[in-house]
């Protein structure tokens, strides 16, 4: 290794700016934020010494008025809404990806683009769109009212329903793309073999199609569930008070409530749960996908 010195220099020159950018402007701030969780809440909502675990106690629900399950409910609700939205996204994306993959090649790029373009607009704007549609006195709300699903003049937002719609709308493309890739690689000889053996259509699907698309499905689940769990905009705009998720709880401590240590403790929980979720989904993907590497 005669050029070891210059090689190292090239490596540093190419990698250092990007790596430094992430370390200085993401890793350090995150550590700083996480450190804040172990401080006490000062008089103006800013963290002060001494070190304490007060923030975690508050997060678990212990306040001056005794224990309340509010934060715990928020956490459970986040998990539940994430799971529900992910399942709905799979149910919609699966036939959509299949439809695209079975069209002539020249149509596929355009159809994929048609699915992806709405997600390029800003999150806030997409939510404004749904606010317009689900507001009181619009055709959709009036239909829901006439079916007695909602009370007249109430509108469909803010509600948990609106949040789920918003989540599905936001993350649908992230499921369609990997599923489409899986369908495109589908080995049709397995399907034909199953049909030659007179398998029922559902059996063909269950034994010959589904297993082949599982890697795509798992990759999509990671891409949908992980960001859905951290969602802030959709719940804030479409949800009102009844559908808040952990992200809203954390943000509130830095905006209105001014309790930075509590917010920082919430942020730690979010980071930990995100990493645990990634690990679990990755394991599940490796097991279901026959040890094939899944995204992330």
């Amino acid at each position, binding site marked *: 290794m005669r050029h070891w010195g210059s090689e190292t220099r090239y490596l540093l020159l190419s*990698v250092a700016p990007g790596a430094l950018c992430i370390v200085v402007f993401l890793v350090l701030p995150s550590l700083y*934020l996480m450190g804040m969780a172990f401080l006490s809440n000062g008089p103006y909502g800013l963290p002060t010494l001494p070190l304490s675990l007060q923030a975690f106690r508050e997060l678990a629900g212990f306040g001056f008025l005794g224990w309340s399950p509010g934060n715990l409910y928020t956490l459970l609700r986040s998990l539940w809404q994430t799971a529900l939205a992910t399942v709905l996204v799979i149910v919609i994306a699966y036939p959509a990806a299949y439809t695209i993959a079975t069209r002539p090649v020249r149509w596929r790029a355009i159809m994929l683009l048609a699915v992806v373009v709405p997600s390029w607009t800003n999150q806030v704007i997409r939510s404004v769109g749904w606010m317009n549609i689900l507001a009181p006195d619009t055709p959709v709300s009036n239909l829901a009212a006439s079916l007695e699903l909602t009370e007249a003049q109430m509108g469909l937002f803010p509600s948990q329903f609106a949040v789920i719609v918003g989540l599905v709308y936001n993350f649908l493309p992230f499921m369609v793309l990997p599923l489409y890739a899986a369908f495109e690689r589908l080995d049709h000889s397995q399907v034909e073999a199953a049909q030659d053996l007179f398998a029922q259509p559902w059996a063909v699907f269950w034994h010959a199609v589904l297993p082949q698309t599982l890697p795509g499905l798992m990759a999509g689940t990671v891409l949908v569930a992980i960001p859905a769990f*951290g969602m802030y905009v959709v719940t804030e705009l479409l949800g009102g008070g009844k559908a808040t998720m952990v992200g809203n709880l954390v943000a509130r401590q830095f905006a209105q409530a001014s309790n930075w240590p509590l917010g920082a403790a919430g942020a730690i929980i979010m980071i930990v749960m995100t990493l645990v979720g990634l690990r679990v989904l990755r394991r599940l993907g490796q097991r279901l996908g026959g040890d094939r590497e899944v995204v992330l």
Partner: protein
Amino acid sequence: MTAPGLARGLRVFWWALMVFLYAPLAVVVFFSFNQINSSARFAGFSWQWYERLFANEVILSALGNTVILALTSSAIAVVIGGFLGYGLYRYRRWKLGWLIWLIYLPVVMPDIVFGIAEMTFFVTLSQYIALFTPGLTTMIIAHVTFQVPFVALLVNARLLSLDAQLFEVCQDLYATPLQRARYFIVPVLTPAIIASALLALTLSIDDFVISFFTAGPDSTTLPIYIWSAIKKGVTPEVNAMATLMIAGVIGVALLSLLIQPTTSATSSKRRSAS
């Protein structure tokens, strides 16, 4: 395998999906031309929200900030991320696992934690260094930080798809590092660089949360303006503003559709052009 019934069902499903995907955007565009400020009843066609929008200096500066933020951060991210992706490929035999981990961090970090971490960091830092006073600079830094990984991964993926022997060919032909960069690496990476620049742009335009938490009083962007208008309950020009952004995004989408086939077709010919 497709029975006619299934095919017809899928076609109906597809168009229902298109309605679901485009209805929210269509409603915004449609009611931006409404004579009254309502999204329930269309009272007649009018340009008045656009006239008010272009007369409002705060909104115009928000529009300017959005464009400056997207273009500047993408330009910086493409350079930094491009080098990172190249370094990741070139030294892939070294133990760089920690680097991959580092690159995935901004991708998996929840937006809200990302934004708040940067906010607390910049607020503290700005007491000592004026450069980090929340504003356009801090927003650009934050955007570059979440764009860099995507650029690096795209560039790295493109390099991994190449035949590794091509690099040796350059050496066999006694190409200097500069010649190798100019006649081989840059031309070969051009499609990936264009794709990652478009991705960086859309990431920047799509982002609200991180911008919101790193913005200062004078660096409001359009999404932030729309957000605070909704929060205050004053929403007259919101649909018109949203329409402008939707038009911009669809423009970029069409542009990418036009560029994509030409870049792959001409990438081999680019050698002389670049």
